[in-house]
Each structure stands twice: as C-alpha cells, then as structure tokens.
C-alpha cells in the first residue's frame, strides 16, 4: 500500500495562493520575476508580430516593384520588337531598291 502524501502543487492551490502564503518580501520578488517573464514574452511576441507585418509589407512592396519592372521590361521588349520589325522593313526596302537598280 503506497504511503499517502500531499503536495501544495497538486492543482488544488493556485500560484497566487502560494505566493500569498510565503513571506511578503519573497512574494514581491517572485511576483516581479513572473511579471518580468510575462513582459519579456509579450515583448517578444509584439516585436515578432511587428517584424512579420513589416516583412509582409516589404514583400508586398517588392512584389509590386517586381510587377512594375516586368511590365516595363515587357513594354521595352515590345518596343524593341517593333523597332526591329521597322528596321527590317526599312532594310528590306533598301535592299529591294538596290537590287532593282542593279537589275536595270
């Protein structure tokens, strides 16, 4: 038969009740320690959330810039194609003129 023991940490007593039962100076230090840990956790969470938000905004801004750059690239490519076609037409026309001259 197991020996029946009890512990104050068996779930029947909360942290506040334990802190209320120890000397006030020790409770003050422990409560500050707990509040400090909560603050550090909250601070880390808030900074992480802000960092995520800023990163998302950066990504969105970069994506926007990328889209704009691609649009500009495509526009320039089309322009180059147009110019090349125009040039080709001009070159072809000049060559035909030359051939016609030679044929005369």
């Amino acid at each position, binding site marked *: 038969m197991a020996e029946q023991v009890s512990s104050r940490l068996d779930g029947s007593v909360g942290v506040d009740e334990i802190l209320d039962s120890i000397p*006030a*100076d020790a*409770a*003050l*230090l*422990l*409560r*500050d*320690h*707990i*509040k*400090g840990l*909560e*603050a*550090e956790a*909250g*601070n880390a969470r*808030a*900074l992480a959330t*802000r960092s995520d938000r800023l990163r998302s905004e950066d990504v969105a801004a970069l994506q926007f810039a990328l889209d704009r750059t691609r649009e500009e690239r495509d526009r320039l490519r089309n322009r180059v194609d147009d110019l090349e076609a125009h040039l080709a037409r001009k070159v072809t026309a000049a060559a035909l003129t030359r051939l016609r001259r030679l044929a005369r």
Partner: protein
Amino acid sequence: MSPFVSFLSVLRSPAALVPMLASLDAQDDVDWQWCVVAAPDAEPGTGAAVVGLAAAHDRVRGLDGAAVAAADVPAAAAELASGAHLSWLPESATLDPGAVAALRRGLARAEWVYTDESVRGEAGNPTGVWLKPDWSPELLRSQPYALYLAAVPAAVAAAVGGFRRSSPAPWYDLVLRVSEVAGAPAHVPGPYLVRATPSSLPAGGRLRPPYVDDPAAARCAVVAEHCARVGIAVDEVSPVEVGGQAVGQRVHRRPGRRPRVSVVIPTRGGSSLTHGFPRRHVAELVDGLSRPGGYPDLEIVVVHDEATPPAVLDQIDKVTSGHWTSLQFHGPFHFSRKCNAGALVATGEYLCFLNDDMDVVDPGWLAELADLLDDPEVGAVGPRLLFADGTLQHAGHVYNGGSPGHLLFGEPADSLDLGGAAQLTGERSGVTGACLLMRADVFARVGGFSELFPLNFNDVDLCLKIRAEGLRIVYTPWSTLYHYESQTRVPKVGEVEMQRIQRRWLYQLETDPYWNEMLRPRPHGPVLNLG
C-alpha cells in the same frame, strides 16, 4: 446606397463654400456627402448659395436655415445626412485629399475615429499643426482634442440621442456621449483637417494649438454632464486658460474617500543649497507633509541609510511629534529595494513614493492625486514637478525611440507645446517614481519596484507592469511639487539597466500611445531616481 460619411457644416458666409467644396471634390475616396445648413444669422445670400449649390452638386444637400431656431441647426444638418457615419466640418476648414480614406482606415479598427489637425495661414501655407495622442479619456474630459477630424457611426449617434437641442457645444457633447457607449476610438495620425486662420487674428498672428472653438462655459457644461453620466462626482468644471489662450477644462472631483496613504521616502539624509539657503531635504519635506491642512490620514515611512546623520532623524522626530516610521536600510544605494522595503512595512491602502528632495507647494496635492486614484481603472497617478527655477521637471513620461524620458523636460511651466499637455490632466504611459501614488494591493500584485533596476527605469518598469494589468496611468498638473533635483547633473544611464528594460519592454518603449508617431523624437530629461 448610403454614402460612407456625411460631413455636417453650418455656414454663416457664402465665401467658405467654394474652398470647402473644392477640398471635398479632391478626395481620393469619393464616398462622401456634404450636408450644409446656412445659419439663421448668416450673411445675406448664404442660404440661397447653399440651396443653389445643393441643386447643382449631387453629393451636397443644403438647407437655408433662416427659419430654423439656432439651437436646432446642428440637428437640422444631421437630418439632411444619409451617410453611415457623421463628421463635423467647421466653417472655413478644408480637408486633406486623404481625409475620407483616413477615416475609413480608422473605422476598420474601431467604432469611431479621430485625426490630427493643422492651420493654414492667409497665404495658404501651413502655420501650425496639432499632433495628438491616442485615446486618452481623461484628456477628452480636459480638452476637446478628439473632435476634428472625427467620425462617429450615425446609428450610434442616433442611439445616444443625436444632437441635443439644449447642448451649448453640440459636437463635443455628441462625441463625449458616443465615447461613453462606443469606447476607445481609432486615432489616425496626420493633419487631415486644415483650419483657416481666423480673420480676428491680428496681421501676422499665428493660431497656436490647441485649437479650442466652443466657449468656455459651453465646454464646461457638456463635460460636467458627461461626468455625471459616467459616475464621476464633480464639484465643478472650470475653464483652463494660459496666457489668454483657451486650453481646456479642469474637472474638480468631489472629495472622495480618504484612505490611509503611506508616504515612503527613501533618503540618505542629504542637504543642498536651495534658493540660496541650505536645505536638509528629508526633514523639510516631512515638515511640509505634517503641516495643517494636509492629507488627513497620513503615515510617513522614512527609509534611511546607515549614514544618515542622527540630527536629521531627530529633526523628523520633532516635526512629526514622533508619528513616523523609521526603517534603516543596509547595503549600497538601491532605489527599488529601499522603496520595496518601505512598502512592506507600510499599512496604508495607498502608497505614495516620494523622493526626499521635494517640496510641497499646496497642502491639497495628495488629496488631488487620491481623488483620481479613486477610479478603479486608474493604477497610478503622478503630479507636475517643477525645478527650483520654475521650469518643468516632470509632466509625465514619454517613451519613444526605445528610450524613456520626461515629457517637456526643462520647458517653461506654462508651456503650450504638444497641445498644452502639461497644463491638463491626461493619461501617460508612465509617471516618475519621484512622486507616484498607487494602491498597495496593485503594488504587491505587480511585484513592486523591480530589483533589476537599482537606479534607472524602476518607475518605467513599474508603470508598464501596471498598464499590463489593464490599468491607466494619469498625470495631473493640479497637484504640483518642487523637485530640487539638479538640472545640470549629467545622467549616468547604466548599459545593463538599459538592456534589461528593453528586454522587458522594447515594444512599449517604441510605441508610446500618448506620443504622436508623426512627432520626431526629441531629447528628454533622463529617467533617474536617486532618492
């Protein structure tokens, strides 16, 4: 489909119509409506101009108010509105092109919203800007700071009774009543409302913030009614003026409970020359506290180093007739430990931490603080502190750029900077531990002053722990003490303490809600406590 926002205006002159409408037509977000009423006492032709404009512009509704009783004009403007939100646009004020979009951004976060405001000179150039804090209910009682540009839901406005016929300051009154049911608004920083310089100003005159429009008696009346509705017992609400400029109001709370206050004074028994005379700080402070007319139930706890001269302790004994608690502190100087030690032997329901180099100006200073602490949502209260030369030492903390400081440090006592913040009661992120009143049970619950901070930032940490409990910190200039701290002392801020405070609270130290993010960081006084 109803427009997103209806702007309400009452005009006395047709001259304002064109610039006001131009600023509305220039909005990026075009989902607005303008409801204009020509005032019964308007210049001749105003009514016809308003009605004519309404006929010509599909977003404008107009009414010639010649036959409307003056008290009914705001309600008449509201009756024209069909928008989901109501906003008041004063005569001659114009809007920034992003104003409606800014209101929409704010209203996505809260039930009502306000922005900042500015003034343009006669040449059209900006001559002043009022950048405001985030939601500060105590400040709204002290000053109509969240009125322009603001927008409230039309349904909520109707639910609280809309514009009341009897109200002497209709928009302030409505915003106060909306705040009572809708709670905290969103604040969108940026001067989205632009005022015109009034023609009454002398040539070259500059309208300085705060911009307070309604007559003093009207403001005081609506704030007194608001206090009655929210359960704040007041004896009087009186106007506050500085240098002839209207700044806001003072709420004189009816003296409430007077629970025992334990004043904890950490000291080394030091002396210095003050106003040219030698001053034995702690003894003179205790003498000031013990004078007739002071707080009725006071316990004085002096936490003194071993090196404190016996003559100082004898003098305290004499001025208090032995009614004080002496606690000797062993070990090197440690502000937090000394205050905690004093708090642990104190018997008061309230604790007041007080540096020894303070001087009481008005015997009612502690009662003023206690009346504010009577509000269960308030966690700590701090007074205005002045240097010996009368300049501001403390008007609340400000946390920006990751570093704490004193608001308006070293400025003249009657400074109107930051909308006159130093002259009015309002919330802060923190107040100095040099003089701080709080409940003893809250002090115990948050673990008192952290021993991680022997010299610096102990009060910053305490205030942020209090705020983390959901309680507000309030500053009031209606309790003033002299603080004979050296104005020229070079602060020694320990690297370790800075790292510790930032590890706990860096986010809060970069995002003070009572410091407008559009204000550039500026140098502040150091946050040091050398009791």
